[in-house]
């Protein structure tokens, strides 16, 4: 390769320049795409009354670092909600969000550069952190713990507790037991909102009967979410376990006091299969059953807008996706889309599945403790509600529901604080990572994608449950 002639060297140089130029153009094109999302100019609307913040003292010049999974617009809303605290105490909050949070947090703890505060999206992750890094994570400080006692129910406190010690305080919350639908489509077809599971199934069959062409189906679903593909299917499963087996069995199942392939769980999976694996009922506008596995969960409900399916089971946070699809869509009871409560077996049987984030601290400096207390206080919840147009609620009972701006959030908060509903936290988020963020997701995906049998799926998940 040493004998290169002058002309070919020159030619090759032009080639290199051409290729380099092309890649530069691509880079520039990629760069120009960003920076468009910062349109929302939110700041706490009301003037902040600093009297509520005097308890935190003067924290001028102090910095608290926060690390979480929350990115993009939601991250901007997070940062906006810290403004009153920053203004009144003089502290600086350095926020960092990452979609690789779950993978990166243990690495950062191990390398000795843990953030001051981390928002853990799953109690399962909290338990893993406490078990693996007992010296790094700090028990919740007095003020924050007092807030939890005062403003949260016992069960929410329980999710942040490991082996009797409170390690994390609740932050945001969401409610998952909802079915999205189009009120006008229901009205046009003369359908009623079902109040029991049987009515829901009758409605499904009714829709099939009313649409003999086969193009319009009662349900649509999508469970693809990158490497987290499968989690919406686990939510389906959890919702149904709560309905067919009840909350007590649900707790035993989540804590592995009964095996994953217990007959009661098998019944629940079969019930989910009656909907998700029934060619007649799914997958409206998207294709056959297997398309559930490849449809992005963010787009799973979109066929409703085109009138290709009637129902889509997804959490409250899905409302943001409708406005992403089309900013003119209204999410309201008399709007373009709305959601009804996924009914229980009977009208009095009201299990409610939900999730949320938890705040854990890795240092106990006074300013970190002060900020931790702030995050667990009603002041923060109200500040957050007033800077968030939609898609955020909290289980904090000091939250003023009037401040919640979207009707969906108000409905979700109403259910969350309604004593007649039996709340349970997302099961896969409570299970060990090898199951909750591993086999449960992958096996549910296989169950749909390659029609793996119920029995094989449950046995495989049971086999993957860590022994220690």
């Amino acid at each position, binding site marked *: 390769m040493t*004998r290169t002639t002058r002309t070919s060297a020159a030619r090759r140089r032009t*080639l290199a320049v051409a290729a380099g130029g092309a890649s530069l153009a691509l880079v520039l094109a990629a760069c120009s795409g960003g920076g468009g999302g910062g349109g929302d100019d939110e700041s706490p609307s009301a003037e902040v009354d600093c009297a509520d913040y005097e308890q935190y003292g003067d924290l001028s010049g102090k910095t608290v670092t926060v690390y979480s999974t929350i990115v993009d617009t939601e991250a901007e809303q997070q940062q906006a909600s810290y403004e009153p605290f920053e203004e009144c105490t003089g502290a600086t909050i350095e926020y960092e969000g990452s979609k690789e949070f779950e993978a990166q947090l243990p690495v950062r703890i191990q390398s000795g550069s843990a953030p001051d505060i981390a928002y853990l999206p799953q109690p399962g992750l909290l338990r893993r952190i406490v078990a693996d890094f007992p010296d790094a994570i700090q028990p919740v400080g007095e003020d924050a713990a007092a807030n939890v006692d005062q403003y949260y129910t016992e069960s929410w406190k329980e999710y942040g507790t490991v082996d009797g010690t409170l390690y994390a305080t609740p932050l945001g919350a969401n409610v998952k037991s909802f079915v999205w639908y189009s009120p006008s489509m229901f009205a046009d077809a003369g359908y009623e909102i079902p109040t029991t599971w049987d009515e829901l199934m009758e409605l499904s069959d009714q829709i099939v009967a009313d649409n003999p062409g086969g193009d319009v189906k009662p349900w649509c679903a999508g469970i693809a979410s990158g490497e987290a593909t499968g989690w919406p299917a686990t939510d389906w499963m959890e919702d149904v376990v709560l309905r067919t087996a009840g909350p007590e069995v649900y707790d035993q199942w989540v804590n592995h006091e009964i095996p994953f392939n217990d007959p009661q769980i098998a019944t629940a999976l079969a019930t989910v299969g009656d909907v998700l694996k029934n060619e007649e009922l799914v997958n409206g506008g998207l294709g056959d059953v297997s398309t559930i596995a490849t449809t992005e969960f963010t787009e799973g409900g979109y066929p409703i807008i085109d009138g290709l399916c009637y129902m889509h089971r997804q959490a409250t946070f899905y409302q943001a996706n409708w406005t992403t699809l089309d900013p003119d869509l209204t999410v309201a009871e008399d709007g373009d889309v709305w959601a009804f409560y996924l009914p229980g077996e009977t009208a009095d049987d009201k299990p409610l599945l939900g999730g949320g984030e938890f705040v854990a601290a890795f240092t106990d400096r006074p300013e970190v403790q002060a900020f931790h207390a702030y995050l667990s206080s009603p002041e923060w919840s109200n500040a957050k509600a007033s800077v968030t147009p939609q898609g955020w609620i909290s289980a904090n009972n000091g939250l003023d529901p009037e401040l919640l701006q979207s009707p969906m959030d108000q409905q979700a908060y109403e259910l969350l604080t309604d004593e007649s509903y039996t709340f349970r936290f997302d099961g896969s988020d409570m299970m060990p990572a*090898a199951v909750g963020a591993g086999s449960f997701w992958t096996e549910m995906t296989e169950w749909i*994608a390659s029609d793996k049998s119920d029995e094989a799926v449950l046995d495989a998940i049971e086999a993957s449950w860590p022994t220690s």
Partner: protein
Amino acid sequence: MDWLLDPDGTGGKLAVMLVAILLFVVVMGLILFLVDRPRRVPGWVVALAFAGPAVVMLAFGLLYPGLRTIRDSFYNRTGSAFVGLDNYVTAFTRDEFQIVLRNTAIWVIVVPLVSTLLGLIYAVVVDRSRFEKFAKTLIFMPMAISMVGAGIIWKFMYEYKPASQPQIGLFNQVLVWLGLEPQQFLLSAPANTFFLILVMIWIQAGFAMTILAAAIRAIPDDIVEAARLDGVGGMRMFRYITVPSIRPALVVVLTTIAIGTLKVFDIVRTMTGGRFETSVVANEFYTQALRQGEQGLGAALAVILFVLVIPIIVYNVRQLKQAEEIR
């Protein structure tokens, strides 16, 4: 020291950068001065001064983590208890990991062979043709796109919509035009692995073409002329003159692509997330070690990957040495 460790604003950062450059110049100058000045310095001091920092950094950044990974692969998920070969047994016997190993084998065999072959054919065909520059730029372009970018682009190419809906993916649109049913390219194993492999070939063929075109150019004209006089042409010229003459380049291309393919992670993660039986060792290692906190198992997978790469590197190095000797 505060302004140095925690600079405010652009001015402060610029100042820190200047300090860093100055520090670099001073240290390098010092080393050069010390090595150059006294004439009677023994050779090992010179060698140590130049190679020492690099060796220290390699030991700290490569050797230590490598040994640590090997150690971890014999320990449980948190690295606290010795479990012997358990992790390796799991990696080789559990069904899902066997699929991972099978996929990695398919990748590492198919990608280098096909991309080298395509690159070679392309290089021969466009060599000295009228559109050479344009044709070469065209096939070289994908090299400039990151693997994540390529994964996203190709995900759109394979996008599935039912026949009754407007198609987004090019492949399915073509199928619909031909009156066929749209397919879920990324769903059905094991074909989906080959659809992912296509993306890697698309990226790597340009690299193979570039190196091989240069090697073909470097074949001495007298050999080609002598062959022509003997009446060799077309396919036989390619078979008996071109390929043997560029053998060292072929080996380098094949092994380089093979090593790159063993590490493939971005494409799989972007396009399927390792679902539907498409996972490969590098992707599974990341998922196990970092996502699911199974450090021991992750380390074992990393070690397996490492062991797989060694023979290829050894072969590559030996071929390079032989090529040097010929020269």
